[in-house]
């Protein structure tokens, strides 16, 4: 077969996904969008009534909202790992996943960015977080981890969007060729007038390499900074040096699981079996298994550190975490994150796509619960027994949490029908 025929085949296969969607698609989009509307409604209710409608109060001032923030930032990480780190390591299997994974990164960060605003209460004062010249000549406190967070997360979002867009430029030029009228014009504009000359390709190749190099340290740094929101305090269970690597491993673990959750149905529905094979899934399953082992190791080390600390508050915190008010959550976390993923040692299961999908749902739950356990259990019992208390989320918090999934899946569904779901250019290059 001539090279061009093979290349055209790839284009048609991938672009077939952008065809007019069926009924099932609209039902799925309708459900997700409704959930998102629920989020907006409940947020409005909270703004109007006050923070009292949320379950957070003294002593647990950080509840489900902060849990969601940490969870969604974590989800984003695996996208960057797949698109940037694996690119630098020349791991060929990334080509099958990088586009959906990058989209996931961008959407997860957008969702994550909502939660500090929701948690603020007076959301319209959000700009206080940014350093800007004021009449009072007072600047933000750069020694505060919350300000580091603003810089880390907004840098991460910007770089991820640029990286995602740059990957799309040559693909936009391909879509342009297949479209007519207004759509052709829009994709033409998005492609920036790409024509594929040698000069463009040469510079593009360099740009992609450098963006990958810039994004790679972010995989380690962003969730480290998020973990320091906790580790910089003196709360027992939070104040530990293992937090940064522990959070980063957890982030990649949960993000990889989310890639399975998104890509397995996508591959089935859009008939992309030829491009995303069991081999590709197996490689990704190995990342999942590896990060699961790191996370499990961190759980053990955390307990070890507390045990040897000689600090009664620290020791009590870990006893409480495993056996106290949140014991059920703690054991869900252990089972979902440490025990079930061990089954991936079996090659047969690593290659079983349905199994991977089901497993990924358990990991998603497990990692959300992990963040909840870390945040809530530590605040519920710090030093002074007089200030102990428990927390359970109110219906507003539960609704907003579900709504965040609605927003995430809506954005992803729109992505499936408007942008090429796989990197056509890269698949062609490796053909």
């Amino acid at each position, binding site marked *: 077969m*001539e*090279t*061009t*025929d093979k*290349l*055209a085949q790839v*284009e048609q296969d991938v672009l077939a996904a952008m065809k007019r969607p069926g009924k099932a698609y609209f039902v799925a989009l309708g459900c997700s969008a409704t959930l998102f509307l629920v989020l907006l409604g409940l947020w409005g209710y909270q703004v109007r009534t006050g923070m009292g409608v949320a379950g957070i109060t003294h002593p647990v001032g950080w509840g489900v909202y902060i849990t969601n923030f940490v969870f969604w930032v974590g989800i984003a990480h695996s996208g960057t790992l797949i698109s940037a780190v694996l690119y630098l390591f020349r791991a060929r299997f990334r080509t099958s996943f990088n586009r959906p994974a990058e989209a996931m990164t961008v959407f997860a960060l957008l969702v994550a960015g909502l939660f500090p605003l929701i948690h603020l209460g007076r959301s319209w004062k959000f700009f206080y977080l940014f*350093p800007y010249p004021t009449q009072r*000549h*007072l*600047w*933000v*406190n*750069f*020694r505060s981890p919350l*300000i*580091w967070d603003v*810089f*880390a997360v907004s*840098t991460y979002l*910007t*770089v991820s969007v*640029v*990286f995602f867009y*740059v990957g799309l430029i*040559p693909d936009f030029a391909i879509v*342009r*060729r297949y479209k007519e009228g207004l759509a*052709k*014009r829009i994709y*033409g*504009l998005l*492609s*920036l*007038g*790409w*024509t*594929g*000359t*040698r*000069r*463009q*390709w*040469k*510079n*593009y*190749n*360099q*740009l992609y390499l*450098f*963006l990958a190099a*810039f*994004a790679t*340290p*972010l995989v380690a*740094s962003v969730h480290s*900074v998020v973990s320091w929101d906790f580790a910089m305090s003196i709360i027992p269970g939070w104040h530990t040096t293992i937090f940064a690597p522990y959070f980063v491993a957890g982030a990649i673990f949960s993000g990889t699981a989310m890639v399975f959750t998104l890509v397995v149905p996508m591959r089935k529905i859009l008939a992309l079996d030829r491009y995303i094979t069991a081999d590709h899934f197996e490689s990704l399953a190995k990342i999942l298994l590896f990060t699961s082992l790191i996370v499990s190791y961190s759980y053990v080390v955390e307990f070890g550190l507390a045990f040897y600390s000689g600090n009664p508050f620290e020791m009590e915190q870990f006893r409480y975490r495993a056996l106290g008010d949140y014991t059920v959550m703690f054991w869900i976390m252990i089972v979902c994150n440490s025990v079930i993923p061990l089954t991936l040692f079996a090659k047969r299961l690593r290659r079983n796509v349905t199994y991977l999908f089901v497993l990924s749902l358990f990991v998603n739950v497990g990692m959300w619960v992990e963040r909840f356990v870390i945040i809530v259990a530590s605040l519920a019992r710090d030093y002074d027994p007089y200030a102990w208390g428990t927390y359970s989320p109110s219906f507003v918090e539960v609704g907003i949490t579900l709504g965040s999934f609605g927003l995430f899946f809506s954005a992803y569904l729109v992505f499936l029908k408007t942008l090429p779901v796989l990197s056509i*250019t*890269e698949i*062609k290059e490796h053909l």
Partner: protein
Amino acid sequence: MEKRMRFENKEEFLAALRDLAREGVPQERIRVETPFYVHEVDEIFPPKPAKVKNFALLGAASGTVTGFAFTILTSLSWPLIVGGKPIVSLPPFVIIAFALTILFGALSTFFGFLHLSRLPSLFGVIPEEEFGNAFVITVEGEKTE
């Protein structure tokens, strides 16, 4: 006079390019359009060193400088001691400088790429002719004095 060759096959395209190199046609006269980045082209016609890296370095360095200058100068402009830490607390400022290094570096590389590749190009938004998946070599005629 322009001579255009269009190939359906990558190997034939490379063979033709090698022939041109053997004939001694200077690469300034050759324009190549491909559906993806073909590394072999660079072996046949070694390119000038890419300049994108200069933008990366410049952007990253300016990010580091901005990060430190901004945090230090704003702290000094209202010297308020917080949590018993020094006014100029370098360790936390490193985090800001690190983030800005990456942010400025990535953005500068991107804009540098646009500048060097002559993008966005209005003529290319809806190009007059498109080669699709073909590999195209255009040899421009020799300039006559």
